[in-house]
């Protein structure tokens, strides 16, 4: 049996074991009260899950072995990996494909399931029945078994010749194995892509735990006891998923070139929606624990969160998004299976909710304005409305597909300006969240009446108004506009920060451990302010003022957001003077990028180059001329020097362009200069294709003697000397070969001098070879065509090409650090809350009544 057969066998074992485990746990819990599970069936359930877990780990080890061993006879390895991929990115190519990402999700469920088997106690049987049921569903997605004409799941262990049996090469050689894989998408070769997907899938997996508890509670009629464990797990889920989403945002900011961190792409939205609902559900759970209200809401939202996770899976993996998204997975033909499972879970869980709805306890007391519970409840509602809006718009391609299924053709498209569309509504959700989190937090810790409320609110409200007025003044002073929605978000955001901060300071005096809610609310309010500043006032500094030639055609104002930078020509841009100075390569063994002009390409191996001169960084020398070194040829870095006009200070950015055939050309990634109060973000929008041969003019011949001057088009040059050429620049000189190199100094712009060394080789057998030398700065190429030793004359051929340039877009992102630091605070707040709930013994209701102030963290 081959390694792939072992893998496939493990998949099948894992699937069957999940079925057995689900059955065992189900039978153990069926018809029995909570905690009185049938021991024999329970043993079967546990055993099944243990076997399932081992088999899943077996699948993962096998798949990684295939990738690590470069076994390109397997489609998965060929499609996602390559010979030159560093090991840490082999981990990311594991989940680049659909099957691997399902495996990652399954893996987290295995770990969480194991934790629950130890910790869930009386809940174990019903909760694990749900868990194993979900595992069964996920395993079937990678099962790769065909029953009749029905294909169930897509196996990651499929062979190349099974996947593409029509490849002509298999007719000649059925055992053909590709020499190299297609490689990991270059955009994913980023350290965030090593940790972002696992974090996100851990977040996904964590939403299953509260869902499983809720279903178990409905099933067993234990409608209140599930809240306690569900809160802790929801805190984990909210924190991990929130951080995971923001990791993705940071990756997009650093790697993609749409000019920001969030693009309202359906794939991003698909994760954002369940997170909002999860956080709303968390608040509803806390409401029940503290105020004995909102339990029905909590049930509904916890169930909805998991269903939305399944819906997100359907959106991103079924191909229904089609043109609407740039980075959904490729369609594996699993949409039928996905819809089936989605429908099954929707019907089952909503059915159970309806069945028990009437028996879920509701609070008899009417909430008043002085109940913080009311404000928390409204806050959760605002979150749900925000999620609803994103859901309605993101699902537009689904409506088309749905009515298309009934033969109706719909031509509905996503909004043309998605950012404006979402911002219009999400901004108000932000306003609501900021203001309500402040109000609820201030009222949460005290008994409220008219007097106490006005006492508590006066100081934060005054400070907020003062602060907001000051900021508005400053913004106006700097010549920016501030519209009403922006003012609203600024004011409420400030209120959110100040109210929660004020509460935090009080709490710190009283008891540090209950501050998790306040900390994460400060984080969220800071994030809102950061988004307002960095997105609302993102300022394009590469406004083009020249190139007005075509604009007469268009009387309307058109943004011209890109500038052309000729190599070594300083260009004014905003407050900066920019100079593009050349192309650089990433040499893994050298800490800084290396100028392409120092590297001579090696024939037949694009991953190697020969150093033309000494490569050093600072005082440390890394390579001497003639050394062969390894490079990463797919990335070209364009060195751009920014010099501030007033201060004279300068910095260097290296925006990158990647050759990426799979995505059809060149992909630009930005480089970002971080300042404490803003970022300078810039990327190339267009460059002469580095993979294309340049168009050289016909060579012009010059026959000269030493120290003669050559008049080239725009420059002049002096032929200094001719000397024996060393065995550099990949000449591959053998014994008896003679090589001569000319030394020409070309005088470029601003007195810059370039040494050019074209080489003339006479091989042992009398063959003549010429190695041209190029000055990329000037677009010049010089060959040493002939040598007349008698007359001491040398003939040079000079050809020219268009000068090198880049087209650059640059923008300023003010106060973006507020967003990132707010994210960290939010995560820290979640962590604090988890820690508190882990330590605190369950407060008995009687105790809670006795000391009203000692309540749980919000």
């Amino acid at each position, binding site marked *: 049996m081959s390694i792939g057969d072992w893998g496939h066998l493990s998949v099948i074992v894992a699937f069957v074991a999940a079925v057995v485990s689900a059955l065992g746990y189900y039978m153990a819990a069926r018809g029995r009260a909570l905690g009185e599970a049938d021991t024999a069936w329970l043993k079967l359930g546990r055993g099944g899950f243990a076997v399932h877990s081992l088999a899943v780990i077996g699948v993962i080890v096998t798949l990684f072995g295939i990738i690590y061993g470069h076994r390109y006879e397997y489609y998965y390895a060929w499609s996602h990996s390559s010979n030159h991929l560093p090991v840490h990115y082999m981990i990311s190519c594991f989940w680049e494909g659909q099957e691997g990402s399902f495996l990652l999700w399954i893996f987290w469920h295995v770990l969480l399931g194991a934790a629950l088997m130890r910790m869930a106690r009386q809940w174990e049987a019903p909760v694990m029945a749900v868990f194993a049921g979900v595992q069964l569903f996920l395993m079937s997605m990678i099962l790769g078994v065909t029953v009749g004409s029905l294909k169930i799941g897509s196996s990651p262990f499929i062979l190349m010749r099974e996947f593409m049996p029509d490849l*002509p*090469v298999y007719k000649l050689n059925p055992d053909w194995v590709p020499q190299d894989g297609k490689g990991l998408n270059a955009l994913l070769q980023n350290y965030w892509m090593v940790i972002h997907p696992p974090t996100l899938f851990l977040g996904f997996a964590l939403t299953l735990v509260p869902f499983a508890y809720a279903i178990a509670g409905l099933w067993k009629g234990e409608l209140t006891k599930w809240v306690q464990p569900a809160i802790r797990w929801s805190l984990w889920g909210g924190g991990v998923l929130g951080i995971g989403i923001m990791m993705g945002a940071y990756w997009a900011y650093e790697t993609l070139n749409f000019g920001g961190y969030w693009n309202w792409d359906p794939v991003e939205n698909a994760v954002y929606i369940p997170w909002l609902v999860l956080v709303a559900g968390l608040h509803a759970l806390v409401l029940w624990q503290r105020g004995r209200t909102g339990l029905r809401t909590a049930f509904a939202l916890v169930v909805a969160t998991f269903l939305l996770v399944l819906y997100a899976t359907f959106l991103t993996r079924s191909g229904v998004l089609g043109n609407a998204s740039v980075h959904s997975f490729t369609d594996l033909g699993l949409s039928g299976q996905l819809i089936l499972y989605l429908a099954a879970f929707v019907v089952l869980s909503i059915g159970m909710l309806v069945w028990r709805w009437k028996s879920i306890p509701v609070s008899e007391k009417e909430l008043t304005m002085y109940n913080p519970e009311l404000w928390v409840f409204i806050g959760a509602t605002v979150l749900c*409305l925000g999620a609803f809006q994103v859901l309605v718009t993101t699902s537009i391609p689904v409506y088309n597909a749905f009515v298309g299924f009934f033969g109706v053709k719909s031509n*509905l498209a996503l909004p*043309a300006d998605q950012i404006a569309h979402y911002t219009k509504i999400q901004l108000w959700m932000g306003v609501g969240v900021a203001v309500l989190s402040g109000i609820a937090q201030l009222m949460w810790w005290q008994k409220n009446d008219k007097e106490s409320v006005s006492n508590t609110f006066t100081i934060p409200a005054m400070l907020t108004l003062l602060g907001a007025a000051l900021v508005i003044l400053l913004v106006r002073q700097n010549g920016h506009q501030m519209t009403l929605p922006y003012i609203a978000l600024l004011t409420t955001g400030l209120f959110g920060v100040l109210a929660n901060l004020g509460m935090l300071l009080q709490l710190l005096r009283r008891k540090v451990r209950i501050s998790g809610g306040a900390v994460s609310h400060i984080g969220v309010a800071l994030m809102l302010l950061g988004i307002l500043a960095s997105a609302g006032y993102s300022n394009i500094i590469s406004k083009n003022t020249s190139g007005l030639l075509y604009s007469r055609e268009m009387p309307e104002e058109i943004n011209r957001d890109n500038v052309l930078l000729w190599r070594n020509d300083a260009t004014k841009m905003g407050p900066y003077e920019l100079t593009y100075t050349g192309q650089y390569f990433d040499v893994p063994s050298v800490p800084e990028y290396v100028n392409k002009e120092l590297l001579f390409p090696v024939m037949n191996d694009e991953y190697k180059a020969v150093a033309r001169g000494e490569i050093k960084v600072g005082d440390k020398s890394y390579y001497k001329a003639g050394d062969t070194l390894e490079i990463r040829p797919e990335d070209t870095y364009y060195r751009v020097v920014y010099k501030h006009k007033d201060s004279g200070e300068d910095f260097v950015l290296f925006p990158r362009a990647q050759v990426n055939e799979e995505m*059809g050309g060149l992909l630009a990634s930005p480089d970002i200069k971080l300042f404490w109060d803003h970022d300078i973000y810039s990327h190339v929008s*267009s*460059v002469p294709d580095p993979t294309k041969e340049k168009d050289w003019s016909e060579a012009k011949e010059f026959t000269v003697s030493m120290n003669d001057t050559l008049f080239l088009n725009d420059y002049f040059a002096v032929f200094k000397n001719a000397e024996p050429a060393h065995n550099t620049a990949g000449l591959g000189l053998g014994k008896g070969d003679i090589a001569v190199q000319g030394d020409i100094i070309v005088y470029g712009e601003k007195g810059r001098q370039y040494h050019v060394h074209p080489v003339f080789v006479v091989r042992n057998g009398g063959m003549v070879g010429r190695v041209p030398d190029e000055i990329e700065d000037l677009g010049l190429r010089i060959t040493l065509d002939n040598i007349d030793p008698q007359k001491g004359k040398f003939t040079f051929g000079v050809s020219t090409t268009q000068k090198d340039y880049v087209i650059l877009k640059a923008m300023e992102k003010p106060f973006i650090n507020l967003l990132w630091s707010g994210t960290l605070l939010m995560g820290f707040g979640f962590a604090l809350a988890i820690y508190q709930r882990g330590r605190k013994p369950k407060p008995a209701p009687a105790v809670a009544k006795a000391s009203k102030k000692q309540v749980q963290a919000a």
Partner: protein
Amino acid sequence: MKKTHLLALVVIALAIGIVMATAGDASVYVSFKEAKELAADGDLRKVHVVGRLPHDAGNNIVGMQYNPTLDPNYFTFVLVDTNRVHQQVVYFNPKPQDFEKSEQVVITGNMRNDVFVADKILLKCPSKYVENEVKGATAAR
């Protein structure tokens, strides 16, 4: 009326508002003919048009012009929609790098005077397998 009922009413009203806003902002896939009719009616809403690039006998793209040294923010090309209507499109941005390779082009924007001004271009590239099959197989021989 109980407060919860009032809240529920407000929520329903807001939800309806959200659906209306989405319906109002949603764009449509149209042909160039419809895009022209919309513009003639004074409707400046941005639309989606799906089309292909016209090729001549030598498999070169016809009517495409981008001269970055003259104006890096002006790119124009001809798009043929599904009804085979040819239309000049102007895009006030640099030419997308992989433009020539695309099989299908989706543009968003609207007609102004005689040209379609696009503010977004989505490219659909040929299935990634085709090219690689050939490449992998030749490397083996």
